[in-house]
């Protein structure tokens, strides 16, 4: 079972995990990653995306994760629009019979979301607004999944 949503509204991690768990009674491990707007100096964050491509890119990597690990469920929810410090940005939840595939698939999906899904963050601070720069460490992180 996989769920992919791009939405303005907040998500309810508990409800997403309940839905995920209900999908298969062989589930023994659920890993969630929640990305949150950091409050240090930032007063707000606006998320822009490329409608259509975003959903395709996420679906492609969810399919790849499902092919690489024995997953029993995957949920990806990414928010767009105006967010405040402490707000949720993204949820990745993975379910499997054991912990290793659940952890690895969640990290894989986050690494790809960070480096391939077409979202861009505009940060607002007291000093003005600024487009967030991509982190080199995210490109390093994603390299570990390449099979070559």
């Amino acid at each position, binding site marked *: 079972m996989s769920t992919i949503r791009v939405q303005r509204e907040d998500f309810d991690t508990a409800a997403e995990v309940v839905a995920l768990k209900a999908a298969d009674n062989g589930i023994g491990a659920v890993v969630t990653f929640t*990305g949150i707007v950091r409050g240090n100096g930032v007063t707000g964050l606006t*998320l*822009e*995306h*490329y409608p*259509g*491509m975003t959903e*395709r*890119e996420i679906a492609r990597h969810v399919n790849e994760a499902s092919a690489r690990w024995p997953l029993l469920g995957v949920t990806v929810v*990414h928010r767009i629009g105006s967010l405040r410090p402490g707000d949720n*940005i*993204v949820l990745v939840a993975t379910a499997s019979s054991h912990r290793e595939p659940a952890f690895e698939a969640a990290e894989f999906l*986050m690494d790809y*979301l*960070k*480096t*391939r*899904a*077409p*979202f*861009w*963050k*505009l940060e607002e601070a007291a000093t003005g607004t600024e*487009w*967030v*720069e*991509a982190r080199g460490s995210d490109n390093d992180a994603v390299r570990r999944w390449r099979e070559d």
Partner: protein
Amino acid sequence: MIILYFSWIRQKLGTGEERFDVPETIKTVTDLAKHLRARGGPFAEVFSDLKRLRSAVNQEHVGWEASVGQGDEVAFFPPVTGG
């Protein structure tokens, strides 16, 4: 062709989308970027250093040598920062 611009590129150009008739001379994403740069003004600025940009054709990430044609949707954007 539809050309889409995102993030600071969209802001700098003052537009997120344009319809574009592709001249015969444009075969690749690089050709297109050079053509846009030649418009001058904010386009010259945005396309002055392609290393800062990424592109997609028909909603898939591509390299600068990817082919483009009249029926395509081409997007230019900076490295992504979601997640």
